[in-house]
């Protein structure tokens, strides 16, 4: 069950080299290079700021809504793109798997790491926007933001576990990618990305809480938007989710591992 995780850790040098390759190959040849990874979120933020200031009036407790939305979308974008990349990674890296002795768990790890890098590169934009809002007195940053790294760590662990399962299953079943894409679209609305949990009517909240990713998104909004400590309940849910995803993903991967090089 933990063998895939151990192998990934042992191959961290390769994971980091392949991740750098992934990033530099993506931006190479572009005029702005890595700057694109800043431009993209900046544009997104600008659009949100305009739309929710002049077009839609957001709820009072989530103002400035552009900031709230931006934080949620960045983090959700990491989750969904990492899982979609994981679903395709063995198809893309088939030659490498068939022709070298590389440990296959390296590839879902790279998918997650590359998307994490994009998320981390966008955080300065979030920080800048937050400082701007602070200057205008619309947010009041506090020490709760120090909890963010731990929230992200647990999220990365959970996503890596899911990525292991998704990548191995996708080798064997052609419809896994579509399945994952549809589930993610659905989950985007069922997870408090666009709205705070408080906006959901009381009677639906238990259902919302049943989605383990609700805790992650709530914790993100708590730490970077409301600047309040993450609740103990959310910590427990996040810790449990990370552990279960990692264990289950590792088990699925280990079960299917032998045939990956043959089927990819």
């Amino acid at each position, binding site marked *: 069950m933990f063998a895939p995780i151990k192998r990934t850790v042992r191959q961290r040098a390769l994971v980091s080299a392949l991740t750098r390759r992934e990033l530099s190959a993506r931006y190479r040849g572009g005029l702005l290079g890595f700057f694109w990874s800043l431009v993209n979120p900046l544009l997104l933020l600008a659009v949100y700021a305009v739309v929710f200031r002049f077009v839609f009036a957001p709820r009072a407790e989530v103002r400035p809504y552009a900031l709230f939305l931006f934080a949620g979308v960045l983090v959700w974008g990491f989750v969904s793109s990492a899982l979609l990349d994981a679903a395709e990674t063995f198809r893309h890296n088939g030659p*490498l798997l068939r022709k070298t*002795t590389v440990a296959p768990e390296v590839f879902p790890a790279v998918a997650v790491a590359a998307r994490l890098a994009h998320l981390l590169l966008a955080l300065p934009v979030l920080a800048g926007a937050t400082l701007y809002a602070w200057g205008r007195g619309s947010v009041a940053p506090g020490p709760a933001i120090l909890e963010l790294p731990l929230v992200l760590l647990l999220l990365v662990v959970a996503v890596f576990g899911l990525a292991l399962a998704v990548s191995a299953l996708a080798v064997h079943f052609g419809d896994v990618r579509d399945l994952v894409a549809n589930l993610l679209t659905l989950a985007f609305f069922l997870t408090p990305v666009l709205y705070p949990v408080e906006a959901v009517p009381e009677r639906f909240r238990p259902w919302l809480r049943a989605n383990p990713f609700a805790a992650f998104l709530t914790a993100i909004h708590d730490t970077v938007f409301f600047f309040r400590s993450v609740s103990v309940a959310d910590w427990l849910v996040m810790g449990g989710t990370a552990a279960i995803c990692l264990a289950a993903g590792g088990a699925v991967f280990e079960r299917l591992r032998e045939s990956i090089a043959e089927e990819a």
Partner: protein
Amino acid sequence: MVDSGREDGPTVEGEGTIAVRAERLTKFYRRYQRQRSFGSLKSALLSGEGFRGASPEGSVKALTEVSFTVAAGETVGVVGANGSGKSTLLKLLAGIVRPTSGRVEVAGRLAALLELGAGFHPEISGRDNIEISGLLLGMSKREIAARFGEIVRFAGIEDFLDAPVKTYSSGMAVRLGFSIAAHSDPDVLLVDEVLAVGDESFAHRCLEKFSEFERAGKTLVFVSHDLSLVSARCRRAIWLDRGRLAADGPSADTVALYRERVASEESEARLAVAPSRDAATRIGSGQAVVERVVLRDAQGRETRRLRAGEPASVELTARAREPLTDFVFGVGISTIAGSPVLGVNTEADGLRPEEFSGQARVVLEIPALELAGGLYSLDAAVHARDGAPYDYRRDLLRFEVTSERPSLGVWSPARRWRGEGQVRWKK
């Protein structure tokens, strides 16, 4: 041992002399692999099939019960036709695929060079590709840094180090791929037919590297279609034939056996040309018929390849449609070009017919087949004593005679030479 990724591949500890051990290696591949991988999760769950493995019916046997060991420091060549399982064998030894049954043990660090430049990314620089390829081959970052200069020099790409690999000529990419693998300093190196690419001077440098390897006491297993290279480079060679170990021994012997098989298969393909069955090749009243003719070698095995000078027999299966008292069996041999070589029959050889009814087998035994090497055609007949044919079959089968002593003509009797006077030959 430095981790090469598939670290749970078995290793042998404390057995200094054996570097690679393959035990009854068997590998099935799924026959409908493509379809299978496009199958859906939904249908798998619905049919309850789940993740169960391939059933033997739906698989192709790539390798069957292959066992051998390679001593540390040995260089072993692997030969065989396309599809005989050579690449599968290397992949099993490398741990890239798992055997369906059987075991592989490898002592020490293994590197597999199944394709030069596997793992190169075209968009990134040669420098970055060296790092990734090195890591893929199981080197640590420190080792890569230490050998970086040597790798670049051997590949001769100093001026292109920071250019993306897509701008490299194919020769440069191949040189770089080999250079990285050659400098990864494995204890066991597996190489799959990679010398076929690249120019002469590069192939030469690769071979030099192999020699260096040998001198350093490393183990090398390499697949090649170049039989003379295998004979020259390896003391030992393995021949895989349709997934089975057909020969394992000194490379000269293995290569000779393999060559003989290739030659025989070629001649069988030529012999398989079915003799024409038009009226001109078969005449007769049909009162009796020659149903079948079989050639047998000295051991009594049915064959179409006979060795010159060895015993052979021709076996006719014939049937009389009515009881006959007047019958003669005959056998004729001619060259493929049509020159008669032999014509014999029971009558001429003094056998007086008494009765022939129903089915019979008539065997012509030849104690020593004194024919020169070449292709021959065989006629068989049953006819009346006055020559009126019951069934006369021309060009009924073709066979080949092999000879170690080439000669012209068709007759190749047992012979020896003698000299008297002022003439001598070397012993």
